[in-house]
């Protein structure tokens, strides 16, 4: 099982009010892709993740595989599974490349 886990050295936080504002705007049909809802503090620099990125990040808790994450987020977004899986895989590959996520290869 390849479970996804966050780099434990990264300090992060959900910006709750901003997340709620983004959810409200999404509900109203507005574009929110560039709006940060999760902040990551890495080596004194701040980075942000948008709503989908923040949700993925939140689920990378060392207990879930990619498939688990896709299944959970399918309940939140009205899209085809293959499309969502591709988007999530691309995002995760980017963060693994940056060293912010990794796969836990240990078995149960």
């Amino acid at each position, binding site marked *: 099982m390849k479970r996804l886990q966050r780099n434990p050295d990264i300090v992060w*936080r959900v910006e709750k009010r901003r997340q709620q504002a983004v959810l409200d705007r999404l509900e109203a049909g507005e574009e929110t892709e560039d709006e940060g809802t999760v*902040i990551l503090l890495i080596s004194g620099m701040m980075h*942000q*993740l948008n709503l989908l990125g923040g949700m993925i990040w939140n689920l990378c808790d060392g207990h879930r595989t990619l498939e688990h994450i896709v299944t959970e987020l399918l309940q939140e977004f009205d899209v085809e599974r293959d499309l969502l899986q591709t988007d999530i895989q691309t995002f995760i590959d980017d963060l693994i490349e940056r060293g912010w996520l990794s796969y836990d290869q240990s078995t149960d």
Partner: protein
Amino acid sequence: MTNPLTEQFSAPLTFNWSLSYRCNFTCSHCYSREEECDELSTPQLKQIVDVLVKHQIPFINFGGGEPLLRPDLYELTTYAREQGLNISMNSNGWLLDAAAAEKISTAGFRSVGISIDSADADLHDDFRIRPGSFDKAVNALDVLADAGVRTTMSSVISRINYRQFHDLLDLARKYRVPQVYLHNFKCSGRGFKNRQELDLNPQEWKEFYVEALKVKEETKDLLISFDDPVIASLPGYADNSLVKGSSCGKLSLNLRPNGDITPCGFIPLVVGNILRDDFEEIWYNSPILNKMRNKEAKGKCQGCGAYEDCLGGCTARAFATTGDLSEPDPHCWK
């Protein structure tokens, strides 16, 4: 990745927390030496940690006063670490021997800063009015490094050291310190009383920062950090700060030993108490914090091209010398 966050954060990222104003030193520039304040019990301190966890405030930096004078420091730190908070501390190093370093390591401190004012032992001791304090401070750096604790060196720039800051950097290298903070001089407490003797004039500040920024750019083996918004207009200033102007009230808040919250340790305006008041109400609606976040250019700041970057410089210094949060920083050379 997304656009820069321009709206207010949902909570500060750091609480600078004085558990006590008691100290075993009486330094000439200290902001808190003449402060008196009730201290809280260990259960009350843990309640504060719970509040910080609830509001997802990730960093605590203990200062003071000397944090190591509180015997429950390790218990409190362990409690905070267990809940995922990141803890650091500033100390004068006097009480920090090998046994203390091991306790600090076990308690999970992320880093410990030791205050050193001069690489000249006699000058440091004179300034701290405590013979032997230099030797204790550098020994603290050594035993912390031996215990695997990341160290930093904190040096408040003043008339006694501004021409010799290179020596402070060499001292850091000698004692395996990866990061040096060259702090700006605050006109608070004894720093206010002794500012004629210790503070630089604006032109001297400019000359110091121009050189120090150049050295920072050229230095690869040591991280050199500043915390002075007045430098935002200088060449070599890398704009990687999360906010413009002073970070107080935007990224950080200060906790006094009785739980009172102030925007920073150098601004004695209480905006609420963390145990008695609703934290979100303070954070979002404090008139003082909102005034600091929305400063209006006054005096020579009006029409100055640097204002949008420095936002008037250090708000604490402006307040200390004029009583007005929006007045220009007295260190400004423009």
